[in-house]
C-alpha cells in the first residue's frame, strides 16, 4: 500500500482529523487491552504484589492449559502444511488459466472467506457427520467399514480451519506467481532445462516470498482462530481461544481468561513483527 504525496501541512499534527480517530482507538482498543494486562497480572495471593506472572505462566502449568497449548500448536502446524500443499497447485492452476476462468476461480477462492464461520461450520457438520458425504465416500472407497467420527474432535477443527485459511495461502501465492516473467521459463526451457527443474529452480525460488507470507499468515490465524474450532471441536478439544471462552463463560474465572488473552496478544504482536521482518527481507532479496 502506498501513501499519496504528503505536502502542505509540513510536519504539523493534523489534530482536527486525527484526534477523533485516536480517541476512539485509545478508549476502545488500547485501554481495554491495558485493562486485560492489569487483570491477567493481578496477584493470586492476598499479599502478592501487582505484576504477578504466576497466572500467565500458570496457564501452561495446568494440565488443561498445557494440553490446549500443545493442541493449538499441533493443529496450526498441520493446517499450515495442508494449506501449503493444497494452495500451491491451486495457485499454479489459477495463474495458468485465461482471464475469464481466472476471474471465476478467484471468485470461488474469495467467496468462501466472506461467509460466516457459523454457516461454514454448519456445512462441515453436515458433510462430516456419521451419515455425511465424507463417511459415505470413505466407505464406498473401502477405506473404512463403519462411519468414523470426523467432527467434534481435532479432525473437525483441522478440516474447518483448512477451509477457513486456504484462501489466504492461495492469494499470497498468486500475488507472486503473477509477477513471474514467462520469458524466464521460456529461456530456461530453450536452454534445455526440464519442466521439473524449471519448477524447482525458477518457480519455487521466485514464489518464496509469497510462500513465506502465506505460511506465516495461515499459521498465525490458525493459532488465534475462535469460531471455527469452537463450533467444530466440541467441548472436549479446547484450544487456547476456546479455553479462554470457557474460563470466561463457564468457569467465570476471568483472571485466568485474561492470562490466556495476554498470551494470545503477545502471539499476535510477535507474528506481525516476524511478518514485517520477513517481508522486508523478502522484498530485498527477490525484488
Amino acid at each position, binding site marked *: 500500500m502506498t*501513501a499519496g504525496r504528503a505536502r502542505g501541512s509540513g510536519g504539523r499534527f*493534523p489534530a482536527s482529523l486525527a484526534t477523533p480517530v485516536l480517541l476512539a482507538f485509545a478508549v476502545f482498543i488500547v485501554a481495554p487491552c491495558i*485493562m486485560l494486562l492489569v487483570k491477567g497480572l493481578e496477584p493470586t495471593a492476598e499479599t502478592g504484589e501487582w505484576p504477578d506472572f504466576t497466572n500467565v505462566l500458570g496457564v501452561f502449568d495446568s494440565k488443561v492449559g498445557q494440553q490446549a497449548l500443545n493442541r493449538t500448536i499441533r493443529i496450526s502446524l498441520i493446517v499450515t502444511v495442508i494449506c501449503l500443499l493444497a494452495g500451491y497447485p491451486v495457485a499454479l*492452476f489459477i495463474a495458468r488459466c485465461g482471464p475469464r476462468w481466472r476471474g471465476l476461480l478467484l471468485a470461488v477462492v474469495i467467496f468462501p472467506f466472506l461467509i460466516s464461520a457459523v454457516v461454514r461450520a454448519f456445512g462441515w457438520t453436515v458433510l462430516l457427520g456419521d451419515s455425511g458425504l465424507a463417511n459415505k465416500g470413505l466407505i464406498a472407497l473401502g477405506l473404512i467399514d463403519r462411519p468414523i467420527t470426523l467432527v467434534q474432535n481435532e479432525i473437525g477443527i483441522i478440516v474447518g480451519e483448512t477451509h477457513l485459511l*486456504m484462501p489466504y495461502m492461495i492469494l499470497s501465492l498468486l500475488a507472486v506467481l503473477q509477477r513471474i516473467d514467462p520469458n524466464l521459463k521460456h529461456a530456461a526451457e530453450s536452454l534445455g532445462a526440464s519442466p521439473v527443474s524449471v519448477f524447482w529452480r525458477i518457480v519455487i525460488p521466485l514464489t518464496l516470498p509469497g510462500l513465506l507470507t502465506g505460511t506465516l499468515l495461515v499459521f498465525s490465524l490458525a493459532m488465534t482462530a475462535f*469460531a471455527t474450532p469452537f463450533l467444530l471441536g466440541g467441548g472436549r478439544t479446547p484450544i487456547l*481461544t476456546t479455553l479462554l471462552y470457557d474460563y470466561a463463560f463457564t468457569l467465570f474465572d476471568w483472571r485466568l481468561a485474561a492470562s490466556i488473552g495476554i498470551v494470545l496478544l503477545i502471539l499476535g504482536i510477535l507474528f506481525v513483527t516476524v511478518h514485517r521482518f520477513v517481508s522486508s527481507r523478502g522484498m530485498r532479496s527477490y525484488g
Partner: protein
Amino acid sequence: MADFFLRSGRGLVTVMALFWLVFLVAPIVVTLASSFTSSTYLTFPPPGWSVRWYLSAFESEWVWSTFWNSVVIAVVSTTIAVALGIAAARVLARHRFYGRGAFEYAVLSPLIIPGVVVGFALLNVSVLIETQDAGLLNLIIGHTMVTTPFTLRSVWSSMAGSDISLEEAAQSLGATRWSAFWLIVFPLIVPGIVAGAIIAFTFSFNDVTISAFLSAREARTLPVELMSHIEYLPDPTPAAVSSLMIVITLAFFLLVERTVGLGVFADR
C-alpha cells in the same frame, strides 16, 4: 521424455487444484442443498425437496429479531467505520508528522490483536463501567473498531491514486478546504468508500467471534443465535437460515465484483 513430464505434471496440478477448489465450495453447496430437504433431519443428498424449512425460518421469531439486530449493528458500525476510515486515510495519505507510524499502528491494530482478545477486553470494560447489558451498544462499538482497518485500507488506496494538485488548484481558485474536499477528493474516493463499506458490512453481519463475547441476553446477532440453534435444534431450520445468509453475502460479493472488482480482496 520432457514432454511426458510436462504433461503429467500439468495434469497432476489440474487434478489437485480441482479437488481443492471443490473442497472450498463443498460446505456452501451442501448447506444450500440440504436446506431444501423434505425430511425432518439433516442429510445430504436430501431424500426429497421442499421449501418447508424456509417457511419455518420466516415464521420463527428468533430469526427476525436477531436479523434486525444484526442489520442495525452492521449499518451503524459500518457508517462510523467509514467516517473513521476516511479521516484516518486522509491523515495517513496527506500528512507527515511525528508519530505517524504509531498512528498507523494504532488504527490497524485490530488486525493484529486476535478477535477473542478484542471481544473479551471490551467485555471487561463494559462490566467495569456496568454497561454489560447494553448489548447493542457494545456490539456496535466492537464491530466498529474491528472493521475500521478495512475501510481505512480501502479508502487509503483510492486516495493514493488521487492527485493532490487538483485540490490545491481548487483552493487557489477560491474553494474552501471543505468544498475542495467534497467537490474534488470525495468523488475520486467513492469507489474506495463503497468497497470498504461493503467489506465492513459483510464482516459485521457475519461475525461470530466479537459478537459471542459481547452479545447480551436481549441483543444477540443472527450468527450468534444461529450458533446455539445449530447445537440444540435438530430440525433443518438453521440450514434455511444459513442459506439465506449465504445469499445475502453473495449479493454483496457480486456488488463488489461489479463495481470495484475482486482486487480489493486480493490486496490484503
